[in-house]
């Protein structure tokens, strides 16, 4: 077991525990904080995959900006555990069963995939595709069109937000 395997283990446990915390915790603020921790753990995974740029962008965008806005809204609305609507027991139970079923199916599928990885694993083209230079090359050569289209996507989101948010 080398260092990166140990780190992988720690990060995975951290990600899973904090993701569970998002769902389980009664207080929405704690949920958001747990989500931030999850994003950090996932960024750690990215760094282990040598995708440092992706890791940092993940932190800037999710932990630094989106989650801060989440915190903003939740803190201003002052949601507490008492205000949270109580769902019926049956609904919770049904949700639990459904989630369990999906989990089982996914585990079964992935179990088969594990045998497959011995023979025909999905291989990355190279170990350093996540570095910013290679990423930039890929984005501005092969994927320049989707890159531009995604800027149009942001334009539409922006126009939509302004339309909904503007004063009369």
């Amino acid at each position, binding site marked *: 077991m080398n260092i990166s395997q140990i780190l992988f283990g720690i990060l995975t446990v951290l990600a899973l525990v904090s993701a569970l915390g998002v769902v389980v915790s009664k207080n929405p603020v704690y949920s958001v904080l747990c989500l931030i921790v999850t994003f950090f753990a996932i960024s750690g995974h990215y760094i282990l995959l040598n995708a440092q*740029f992706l890791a*940092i962008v993940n932190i*800037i965008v999710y932990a*630094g900006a989106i989650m801060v806005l989440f915190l903003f809204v939740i803190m201003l609305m002052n949601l507490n555990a008492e205000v949270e609507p109580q769902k019926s027991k049956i609904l919770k139970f049904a949700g639990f069963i459904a989630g369990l079923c999906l989990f089982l199916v996914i585990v079964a599928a992935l179990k088969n995939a594990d045998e497959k990885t011995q023979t025909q694993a999905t291989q990355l083209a190279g170990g350093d595709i996540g570095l910013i230079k290679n990423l930039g090359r890929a984005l501005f050569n092969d994927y320049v069109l989707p890159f531009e289209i995604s800027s149009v996507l942001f334009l539409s989101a922006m126009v939509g937000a302004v339309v909904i948010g503007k004063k009369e």
Partner: protein
Amino acid sequence: MYSLHAITHSIQDWLSARLSPVWVLMIESIIVIVLAIGLFAVLGLILVWLERKVAAHMQIRLGPNRVGPAGIFQTSADTLKLILKEGLTPDGADKFLFNFAPFVVMIVAMLALAPIAFANGFQIWDINIGVLYVSAISSLSVIGILIAGWASNNKYSLLGAMRSGAQIVSYELSAGLSILTIVVLTGSLQISDIVHAQQNGWWLFKGHIPVVIAFIIFIIAATAETNRAPFDLAEAESELTAGFHTEYSGMKFALFFLAEYINIFIVCAIGATLFLGGWMPFHIGDWAQFNHVMDYIPSSIWFFGKTFFLIFLIMWFRWTFPRLRVDQLLTLEWKYLLPISLFNLLLVTVIAIMNWHF
């Protein structure tokens, strides 16, 4: 000649000759941690003293002058007092988050230290996305502030935290854009590359007026991001008693206080690295004789000199400009600084492509 670079290398050699690589890594990590915490403590002491002295100078008074010569031990005495004080946790506060927040703020400040080059070859982690890393980490300090404000269960705290959040999230944009101008000129995000690119002159002088504009915007944004006057709405005494740390006392308050000064140091260090060449001595083009003379001054002195100059500038602002209103603050960012820096970035890109810079 002794340099920090040589010292680190000799330690590295000495350790790796005797121990296995894992242990070397461990011991070096411990050395780095000790050094970083030591730097934090010293910086805190110096900067607080400096702030009071600068303030006193601006207001034509003496400032601290009883404890030690020129009052240099005043901060140590204050720290001692803060350590001995009781750390109150208000009733109705969220106990865990209330006690957790100061550490978040502090840890974030520490993380941002990693890629800063203090001297030639003296850098904790020369990550290949250095400046991006710093701006990512500095955007996280707002989370600690928001937690502190919310967990205190106090309306002033919450208001202060909200203001601080809005302020940091918005000013991050123009700070990021002005950092990008230098990235565009250098063609790299790595701190060491950026510093080496300024071997024949600092970017502030090489990059014509657009870089000067970027520098000014960066300083404004840095002041705002560290919640310093005239952007200190998050802790505006006259409106919010003390903003997000109203309820904090004792050592927890000291941590916030320390983190604020560390953050100032970090943004100024980044500003010095990007625009003023970091540890790179003042060089003029290929004038070898002049450059050689400048090289006699150690690189660490260059770095700290530039950083402290910027810190002095930010302290100077505090006693020069009145505090902005919230709407003025946001108007300044979204309606002036952001469009200007976007356009400026475009200009710099043109300069970089056409190779018009020196």
